[in-house]
């Protein structure tokens, strides 16, 4: 039975996040001699965002193979599960982090305090939502961050809508254009404010051109319509300064709007702990690779920098794992 004043447990290395970044860091740390590793993952499974990325394109650099997200994750889950020195705690949610590397986490039925000798933060990103980019108009149901739509379709088997417009031509938006089309919905357009797409060429070809989806560059959403559910959008052409151009507005009827306008690293915990932060990117200030302003606290993966492909995340996290191992050796 848990008591509120249970003793604080000390662990050599705690990794917050059991996605590709956290798992790779755990493997690397073990390979470099760390003998006690705790991974805290908030979801019911390891794998992080890869679990819902059922498309291919992962692993070309790291494994020299073309894998889907879950397959890439499976490789690391296998490695992690075969390392007895790694403890994985699922459904575990870190609620507090102090600068002395004491964490508090919750799990159903459990509240635990852990003091980490070394800490790797692999907390990934959240999506920029409609609320953060002011889009005029009403607030009906049917507006989704692209990643949420992906989760609804790929994990829950729920189809968000039948006529879709995607805001933002980043990779997540492009991937979802294809996913919706394959699931029988009509993607009526992708609206991109810049003059070109930020996504990979492969995705433009296989997600947009393959299905003849209109891609409106230098356009933005002027307004969302619909009282309780999206009924349509007003789209307008913009100039290089992103100002609306008079007379170049048109309407698209749709019942679903996907917002794919960028990712924000999830670093509220380290901010809470008082680490030096770059306010613009919401990432920790780092003098050297994965180190932060507090010795012994490292950040890796998307929480450190928004990467385009997961292979880069693994590469980055290997370094973090090694750095943590070196730090622990130095403490002895």
């Amino acid at each position, binding site marked *: 039975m848990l008591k509120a004043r249970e003793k604080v447990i000390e662990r050599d290395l705690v990794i917050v996040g059991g996605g590709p970044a956290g798992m790779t860091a755990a493997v690397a740390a073990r390979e470099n001699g760390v003998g006690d590793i705790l991974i805290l993952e908030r979801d019911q499974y390891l794998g992080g965002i890869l679990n819902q990325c*059922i498309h291919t394109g992962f692993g070309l650099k790291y494994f020299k193979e073309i894998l889907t997200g879950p397959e890439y994750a499976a490789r690391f889950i296998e490695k992690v*599960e075969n390392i007895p020195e790694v403890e994985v705690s*699922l459904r575990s949610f870190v609620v507090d982090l102090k600068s002395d590397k004491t964490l508090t986490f919750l799990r159903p039925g459990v509240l635990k305090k852990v003091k980490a000798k070394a800490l790797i933060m692999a907390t990934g990103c959240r999506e920029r939502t409609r609320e953060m980019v002011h889009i005029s108009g009403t607030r009906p149901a049917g507006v989704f961050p692209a990643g949420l739509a992906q989760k609804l379709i790929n994990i829950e*088997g729920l189809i968000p809508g039948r006529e879709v417009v995607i805001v933002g031509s980043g990779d997540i938006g492009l991937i979802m254009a294809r996913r919706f089309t*394959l699931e029988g919905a009509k993607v009526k357009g992708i609206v991109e404010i810049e003059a070109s797409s930020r996504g990979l060429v492969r995705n433009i070809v*296989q997600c947009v051109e393959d299905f003849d989806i209109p891609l409106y560059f230098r356009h933005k959403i002027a307004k969302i319509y619909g009282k309780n559910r999206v009924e349509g959008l007003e789209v307008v052409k913009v100039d290089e300064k992103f100002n609306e151009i008079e007379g170049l507005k048109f309407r698209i009827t749709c019942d679903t709007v996907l917002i794919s306008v960028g990712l924000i690293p999830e670093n509220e915990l380290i901010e809470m702990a008082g680490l030096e932060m770059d306010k613009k990117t919401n990432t920790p200030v780092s003098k050297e690779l994965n180190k932060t302003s507090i010795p012994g606290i490292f950040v890796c993966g998307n929480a450190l920098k928004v990467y385009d492909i997961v292979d880069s995340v693994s590469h980055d996290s290997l370094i973090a794992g090694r750095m943590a191992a070196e730090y622990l050796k130095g403490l002895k």
Partner: protein
Amino acid sequence: MIKKSLICIECPVGCHITVCMEKNRAVKITGNKCPKGEKYALSEIQNPVRVLTTSVLAEGMPFKLVPVKTDSPIPKARLIEAMREVKKIKLDRPMHVGDVVVPNFLGTNANLVVTREFFQRGTHTK
């Protein structure tokens, strides 16, 4: 003579390739920086293929849906038909990554395989 242009996706460079066609045959391919591009361009013009990634329903298992893929590309023109077929599948037993759900899917020689591992041990303590 007809000119078709496409972007090669074999690697991140993304060469802009031009294919000159005569009587529906490709006679000249330019713009590629390596031989993979030529191969890709020919394939795209004659018989475009794509790997299909989607999910199938699962019953009585920890996941509602199981992600799957074709283990080699299938004709692009048959993707929608493929999606219709996939919707009829229901898995009723746990599988490993790589297990075949449907061999020789749609007669294309590609197998439909599972891409998510069922057998994760979950939380374990030291």
